[in-house]
């Protein structure tokens, strides 16, 4: 293999280290600095412009007054330096909902339709165009947005949905969402985008007729589970009914399956939303223990930690779960938050020495992190 190609391969793996840690608070700080510097530059430019104009005008006046020769041309005063002008802001089109949530219509011909509006469920459809949606957190109400092939369920977050030819997608700006497409469920966190791919969907339909008996059998079982009553109710937004069905199954097939991480997380959501955090924690413990290799395990560990921390008052268990989340994805988007929360929970649990060591790790790992000053204090550096 040529020398440079070997280097390319090594660089491909290493380039992940060339991504700066940028937290939203860093961006806000940079924006504030930009505005301060911009204001100073405008003042300097304006002052320089005034002086330049005055100097040139004085020079012109000098030559005009001194000159007795009519043919001497007048020196034109140049225009003052351009001052930074604020950019124009296009008018925003925003739809407000009664609970404080809002949808910003990003394109001229965006059409939103409200399908259901109840104390437990607000369901919209993006018929066409694009909308950026900010949802006010409400554990008692499900906020659902649908497109032609996708269903997005949120619990307090900001995301953008596209429903256009060749572009049906959702991008999460803050928080997390669950996206459903046929039989699949995806968890998206801040910074992730998923796009519906019609070519792949066509592939799903083509594979089915060639299924073997084993596939047919597992698909039949999957079909039974898919139609388990509690799941159907949860997917329809009837969370309380889903919880009751989950706890009173008609058959063993209708209990959440421990070999399906997505089903476990849905069950955890149902339990959590209906005020049963301990049961939610059980589902998430199973998800993390049995599916450590699944990308969803990180989110399960993080959610479990939050339940321990905020709803069950178990800081040591919360700290251990945050640690697990970090171990599962040390360079993931949740790693920094998980470390911060682990440190806080270790402190609450009376493990000050451990918290101090972790705080040093934070300062080393995230020198520009949003909590770096606080962590320096904890670490005593």
């Amino acid at each position: 293999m040529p020398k440079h190609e070997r280097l390319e391969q090594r660089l491909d793996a290493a380039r992940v280290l060339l991504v700066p840690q940028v937290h939203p608070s860093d961006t806000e700080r940079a924006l504030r600095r930009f505005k301060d510097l911009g204001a100073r530059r405008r003042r300097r430019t304006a002052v320089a412009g005034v002086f330049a104009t005055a100097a040139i005008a004085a020079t012109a006046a000098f030559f005009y007054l001194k000159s007795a020769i009519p043919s001497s041309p007048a020196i034109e005063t140049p225009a003052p330096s351009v001052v930074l002008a604020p950019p124009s802001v296009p008018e925003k089109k925003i739809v407000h909902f009664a609970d404080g949530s809002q949808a910003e219509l990003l394109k001229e011909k965006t059409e939103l339709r409200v399908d259901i509006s109840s104390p437990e469920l607000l369901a919209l459809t993006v018929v066409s165009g694009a909308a950026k949606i900010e949802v006010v957190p409400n554990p008692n109400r499900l906020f659902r947005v649908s497109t032609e092939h996708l269903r997005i369920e949120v619990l307090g977050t900001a995301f953008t949905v596209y429903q256009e030819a060749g572009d049906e997608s959702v991008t999460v700006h803050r928080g997390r969402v669950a996206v459903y497409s046929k039989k699949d469920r995806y968890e998206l966190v801040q910074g992730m985008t998923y796009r519906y791919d019609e070519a792949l969907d066509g592939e799903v339909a083509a594979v089915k007729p060639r299924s073997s008996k084993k596939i047919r059998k597992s698909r039949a079982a999957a079909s039974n589970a898919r139609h388990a009553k509690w799941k159907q109710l949860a997917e329809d937004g009837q969370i309380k009914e889903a919880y009751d069905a989950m706890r009173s199954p008609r058959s063993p097939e209708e209990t959440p399956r421990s070999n399906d991480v997505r089903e476990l997380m849905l069950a955890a959501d149902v339990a959590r939303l209906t005020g049963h955090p301990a049961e939610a924690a059980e589902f998430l413990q199973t998800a993390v223990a049995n599916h450590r290799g699944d990308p969803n395990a990180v989110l399960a560990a993080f959610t479990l930690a939050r339940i321990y921390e905020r709803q069950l008052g178990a800081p040591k268990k919360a700290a251990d779960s945050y640690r697990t989340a970090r171990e599962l994805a040390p360079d993931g988007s949740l790693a920094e938050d998980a470390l911060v929360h682990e440190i806080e929970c270790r402190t609450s649990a009376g493990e000050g020495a451990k918290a101090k060591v972790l705080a040093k790790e934070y300062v080393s790992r995230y020198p520009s992190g949003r909590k770096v000053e606080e962590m320096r204090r904890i670490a005593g550096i």
Partner: protein
Amino acid sequence: MAEQPTRPLRLVRDEEGQDDRDVPFASFDDLFRRYHRLVATIGLRMLGRRGEIDDFVQDVFLEAHRGYGSLRDPLAAKAWLRAISVRIAVRRLRRHRFAALLGLDGPADPGPFPVGANQEHAALLSEVYRVLELLPAKARVVWVLRFIEGDKLEEIAEVTGMGLSTVKRHLQVATDKITEVFGA
């Protein structure tokens, strides 16, 4: 046995925050927030100096602010900002080379890297950026766009404003130097 079908959704943005589609923005502040991380990433990769990223970002957005009123297609904001970033990076790299000639500049180092980072990768990057310091600014920028950012030659030509043959020439200069230093 038939293979299980792939899921009909695909992830188009990873943790690096790169998006393969520009979303319209409502104001310059919105533009800043949306692309701050992108510009910071380009800055780190081009300059190889973490301590300089903040200033680099300020320079890029200042130039962007000046030209904001003439940006005709908001959906092309990402490509536009990348081009500005590359221009600013070339300018800064030339200043560094000049300062280095006068003995007034220190070596580039893309670190410090996070605790727990793969040490072999960290060492590789430190060495690569040491070698990149030996290159002319444009050759270095072209090489970084090709092998760190992963751009195709045509994309590099577009973002740098160079002709394709010029891009190839710069890339050859850079590749020859790097291959010479890294050896087998």
